């Protein structure tokens, strides 16, 4: 931590320097405490996971926000081929024997998507040895920028086992439609740094390739992990 005030007191006497050093030490101590707290409760301090909005401007309508697991009427998903970061063309039905936790996102997404993929990583770790029975997948909503190469590098930053899928816009729209998911690019051609609005729900497919449940935006990592463990029969 080496932040400096904008108006540094460059000619501060020794006592002030000592005081500043003590403040810096205190800041480090606070930082360490925060880190330790987070390590014991990974979801508790993640505002995205808790749906907490104190002091921020995340707008969350409680009436529309269940922040939890919802079972859905099991629905067999169509086999729509997409290009995978594993180097093959696969569809969401090709994960036979594995649960699939699916998110629609994009690599230029600076806030939501990395928060969700971080949640995936924390969830995966809570699964322990059963993690290999769950595939964590992001289907891009931004095929223009998200080539398989870009997706591969991005997903690997979170976990080398995470899979990214892309395709042409029509295919991706069909996949989204299977889940009633929404995405809309704000690309006006003015800037390469446009945003894409998209559904933030995580969808769960069972090992038979059926959509069986979903995790609302803000569902804590602990809740996702517990749900997956229950489905895997390890709780």
């Amino acid at each position: 931590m080496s932040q400096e005030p904008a108006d540094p007191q460059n000619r501060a006497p020794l006592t002030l320097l000592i005081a500043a050093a003590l403040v810096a030490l205190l800041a480090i101590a606070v930082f360490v405490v925060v880190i330790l707290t987070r390590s014991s409760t990974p979801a508790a301090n993640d505002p995205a996971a808790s749906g907490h909005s104190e002091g921020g401007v995340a707008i969350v309508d409680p009436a529309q926000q269940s922040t939890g697991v919802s079972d859905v009427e099991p629905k067999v998903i169509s086999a729509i081929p997409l290009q995978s970061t594993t180097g093959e063309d696969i569809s969401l039905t090709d994960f036979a024997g594995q649960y699939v936790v699916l998110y629609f996102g994009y690599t230029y997404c600076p806030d939501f998507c990395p928060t969700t993929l971080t949640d995936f990583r924390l969830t995966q770790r809570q699964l322990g040895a059963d993690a290999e029975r769950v595939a964590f997948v992001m289907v891009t909503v931004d095929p223009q920028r998200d080539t398989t190469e870009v997706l591969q590098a991005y997903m690997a930053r979170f976990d080398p086992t995470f899979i990214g899928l892309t395709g042409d816009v029509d295919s991706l729209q069909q996949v989204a439609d299977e889940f009633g998911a929404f995405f809309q690019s704000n690309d006006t051609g003015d800037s390469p740094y446009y945003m894409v609005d998209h559904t933030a729900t995580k969808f769960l497919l069972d090992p038979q390739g059926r959509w069986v449940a979903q995790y609302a935006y803000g569902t804590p990592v602990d809740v996702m992990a517990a749900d997956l463990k229950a489905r895997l029969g390890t709780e």
Partner: protein
Amino acid sequence: MAAAGPLTIVEPWVRAADAEMTAGYMMITNSGETDDALVTASSPIATVEIHETIVENEIARMRPIDSLVIPAQGMTELKPGGAHLMFIGLTEPLNPDDTVEITLTFESGAVLKLTVPVRDAGMMPAMDMDHGG
């Protein structure tokens, strides 16, 4: 902690990223008697905008905002899934242990210069050793 008058920045960080976009987070406290507002943020490594995140009907949208109020005797948190500084057009990947220079300007005229650590969100350094970014 950086401070200017009643304003203090607590635990700032910028998210590690390969892509050209990333986000920065922090808590800004205001011990003063009047509201202030963050009006601009800048950095040598990218264009920086102040963004808010909106989730309606499970659809996530991010939009730039002109200012972010820091209430008197209060605190505003920029955090994942909420308000954040958006870094646009990074010229190089940001990795943990890198630092980012950020200058914040407030409605009151206060200016804060920060040197902010880059972090992988949600990861402890010890846990991240086998998956270093």
